[in-house]
């Protein structure tokens, strides 16, 4: 027995063991704190500063995934038993290690251990060979860094949450404070009427000054605490930049210059003014910090037209706001992570990592994106790309053209709880020739919809005293699956039914008229409605000839990609179809009385019809087989494709004729051209 060796020998043996054993031998106190660690254990754990870990909770020195095993072993030892486990724990230097750990109780008195002996043996060779160590080391390093970052992000998030709560609190007491200030002002005013000595008046002047100062402070606090969901409006970013130019220069300081460059015909964007200003200030502050001393920032505002769809941008008009600085730049791995909330390259306490994230968020709200280019030592360019507002004021149609596409047989259901607004919008729509059904609540709107013969468009306020626009939309969707909808509201706080059009209040009349026409499918060069697409889809199912199927398929794909009719220039593969057996008709005249003129015709078509077509006109009197071609042209003018087919069998001979016709728009508004592609064949039946 070991005890027979005597206490002194045992003590010497123990000291030798602690001094020379390659295992990591530790003494843990009853509460789980690390008290001692053997010298070789420090080597095994690659601990340089023992002081940094002595006194720490032993289980907290382990990775999260292993801690339960550590605690369980300690609990076993507390019960006077031997605890053991195998677990992973990197060394202090970050090298991956697996350990066999044995925990034994020491100094047990009345079943309670005063300390524990923990012996950890490196058994990594059982888990990995040498070649894997480097990989694991790198993984551990990454994990450690990630953990650090997450801890910091969590702290930042908690800080942001505290700020948010503080903001909400401030907002809630501002009104009370203003009431107090108003009472003081009234009292001061009453007193001033009753006094006649200068000293008292001077005192009241001080009171009034204090009240004025207090009012300013509360206003500023209110601005600060206001949730950043300000009302959406049509914004000219050049105006925004001009208004804030001095503040931005003040923000960057004298050592940095700011130049503003504005391109031609930059359209407005639909966004919250406070939100966009906040993003601009954040991006400029980022540029300032990246420069760090003397430098230059250039703010460029341009219009960008996107013709081809990409992962980030759909075809259309955009506004590009660029921030170009000659700061320190960023390496690609940092650029790749920009936009992640709380990711920051700045020191702790200097940046929240929310600045660029808010830019990404704004871009997403405005159907745009953020592009970043950066080079170390050269500088950074950040482009905020926002969809142009549907405010067509810069490309407005003439009144004649607009009036020609309004009215007709369209019925609009208008839902607005404000009598004044409902009457105002209703009158505008009626003067455009539309039939308008007016409702003041969600219930009355749904009742009107059920009773109506048909409804072609819903215009609804998002926030109603009784019900909501979303509720009306939901109910009407069941009855009219393809019904186009326009929502109006003073703010974007309310949920907008997905995919629907939003117009900010106060509603611009010109914008309303054009949006209504667009939603009714009367501007197919601007937007094709679901109903128009569905009608063209049904045509596609009937086509028989392979050539025509291919041609039609290409047109449909373009329509789907663009969300509108393509132009001749965009349908680049059309030419061979026309040359083989097609024609192009140019649309002229007015919307009410259109005139059709052949601008291209294949030899095959001219031969079949027995006359030259190029330059000739089609009138209502012109007729072909299968009825008047003008019916087909009229259908195409509505943005919908046409198809007809005839197969004749007689006396053993089979003759077939098939034709597709589809519209194109070169002006981005209306149908300007109609393409016909035909297929003749004759043979023995």
């Amino acid at each position, binding site marked *: 027995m070991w005890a027979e060796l005597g206490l002194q020998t045992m003590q010497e043996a123990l000291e030798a063991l602690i001094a020379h054993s390659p295992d990591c031998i530790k003494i843990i106190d009853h509460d789980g704190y690390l008290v001692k660690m053997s010298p070789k254990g420090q080597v095994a754990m690659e601990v340089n500063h023992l002081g940094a870990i002595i006194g720490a909770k032993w289980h907290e020195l382990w990775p999260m995934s292993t801690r339960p095993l550590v605690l369980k072993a300690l609990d076993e030892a507390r019960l006077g038993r031997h605890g053991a486990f195998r677990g992973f724990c990197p060394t202090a230097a970050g090298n991956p290690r697996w350990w066999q750990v044995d925990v034994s109780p020491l100094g047990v008195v009345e079943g309670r251990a005063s300390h524990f002996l923990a012996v950890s043996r490196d058994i990594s060779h059982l888990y990995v060979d040498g070649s894997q160590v480097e990989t694991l080391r790198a993984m551990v390093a990454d994990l450690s860094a990630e953990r650090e970052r997450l801890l910091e992000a969590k702290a930042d998030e908690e800080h942001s949450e505290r700020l948010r709560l503080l903001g909400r609190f401030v907002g809630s007491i501002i009104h009370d404070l203003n009431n107090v200030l108003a009472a003081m002002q009234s009292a001061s005013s009453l007193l001033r009427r009753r006094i006649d000595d200068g000293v008292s008046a001077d005192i009241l002047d001080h009171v009034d000054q204090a009240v004025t100062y207090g009012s300013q402070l509360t206003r500023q606090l209110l601005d600060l605490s206001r949730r950043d969901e300000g009302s959406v409006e049509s914004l000219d970013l050049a105006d925004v930049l001009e208004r804030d130019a001095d503040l931005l220069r003040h923000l960057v300081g004298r050592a940095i210059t700011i130049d503003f460059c504005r391109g031609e015909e930059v359209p407005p964007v639909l966004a919250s003014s406070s939100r966009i200003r906040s993003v601009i200030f954040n991006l400029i502050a980022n540029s300032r910090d990246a420069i760090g001393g003397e430098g230059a920032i250039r703010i460029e505002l341009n219009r960008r037209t996107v013709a081809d769809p990409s992962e980030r941008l759909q075809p259309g008009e955009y506004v590009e706001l660029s921030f170009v600085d000659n700061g320190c730049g960023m390496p690609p791995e940092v650029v790749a992570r920009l936009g992640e909330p709380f990711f920051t390259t700045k020191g702790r306490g200097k940046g929240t990592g929310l600045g660029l994230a808010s830019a990404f968020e704004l871009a997403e709200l405005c159907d745009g994106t953020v592009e970043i280019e950066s080079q170390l030592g050269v500088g950074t360019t950040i482009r905020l790309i926002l969809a142009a507002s549907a405010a067509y004021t810069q490309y407005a149609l003439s009144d004649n053209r607009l009036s020609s596409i309004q009215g007709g047989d369209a019925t609009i259901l208008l839902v607005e709880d404000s009598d004044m607004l409902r009457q105002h919008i209703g009158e505008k729509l009626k003067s455009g020739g539309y039939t308008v059904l007016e409702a003041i609540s969600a219930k009355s709107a749904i009742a009107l919809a059920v009773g109506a013969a*048909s409804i072609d468009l819903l215009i609804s306020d998002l926030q109603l005293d009784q019900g909501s626009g979303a509720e009306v939309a939901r109910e009407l969707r069941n009855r*009219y*699956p*393809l*019904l186009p909808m326009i929502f109006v509201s003073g703010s974007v706080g309310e949920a907008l039914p997905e995919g629907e059009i939003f117009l900010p209040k106060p509603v611009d009349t010109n914008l309303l008229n054009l949006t209504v026409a667009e939603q009714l499918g009367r501007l197919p060069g601007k937007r094709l409605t679901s*109903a128009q697409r*569905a*009608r063209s889809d*049904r*045509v596609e199912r*009937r086509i028989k000839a392979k050539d025509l199927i291919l041609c039609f398929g290409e047109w449909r794909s373009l329509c789907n990609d663009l969300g509108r009719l393509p132009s001749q220039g965009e349908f680049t593969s059309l030419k061979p179809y026309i040359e083989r057996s097609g024609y192009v008709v140019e649309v002229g005249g007015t919307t009410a009385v259109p005139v059709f003129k052949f601008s291209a015709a294949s030899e095959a078509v001219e031969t079949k019809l027995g006359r030259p077509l190029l330059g000739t006109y089609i009138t209502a009197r012109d*007729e*072909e*087989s*299968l*009825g*008047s071609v003008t*019916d*087909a042209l*009229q*259908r195409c003018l509505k943005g919908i494709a*046409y*198809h*007809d*087919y*005839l*197969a*004749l*069998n*007689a*006396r*053993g001979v089979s003759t077939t004729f098939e034709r597709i016709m589809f519209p194109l728009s070169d002006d981005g508004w209306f149908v300007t051209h109609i393409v016909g592609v035909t297929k003749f064949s004759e043979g023995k*039946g």
Partner: protein
Amino acid sequence: MFDRPDVAAIMEALSCDEIDQLPFGAIKLDKDDRVVFYSKREAIASGMGERGQVGRDFFKDIAPCFATDEFLGLVAEARSAPDFSMELYKIGDFADSEAELHIRLFSTHDQALWMLIERESDMVAAN
């Protein structure tokens, strides 16, 4: 049945009541293009009213959109052939410019003409 090649013979064998119950419209014209039968289904679908069309000149009074010289020439020339048949897809009829029509024409032994009309319900128009 609509797509069967022997549909003309089947039509000849059916009673008027039976034809009224078919899932497509049917019109029979004599050799002078006068309507001798107009099915209930077609009367309702085309919006022309029940049976009021019997005795009228089809191409002149009922479906002038078909009364083009070229189309009438084709029909006149071909209907005397024993194997005459015609199939056409067309969008728009007298009552509804959005109606999508699938039409088959067959001659009978006495140079009468069966016209069968299948309509794809226009859900969008109903919307």
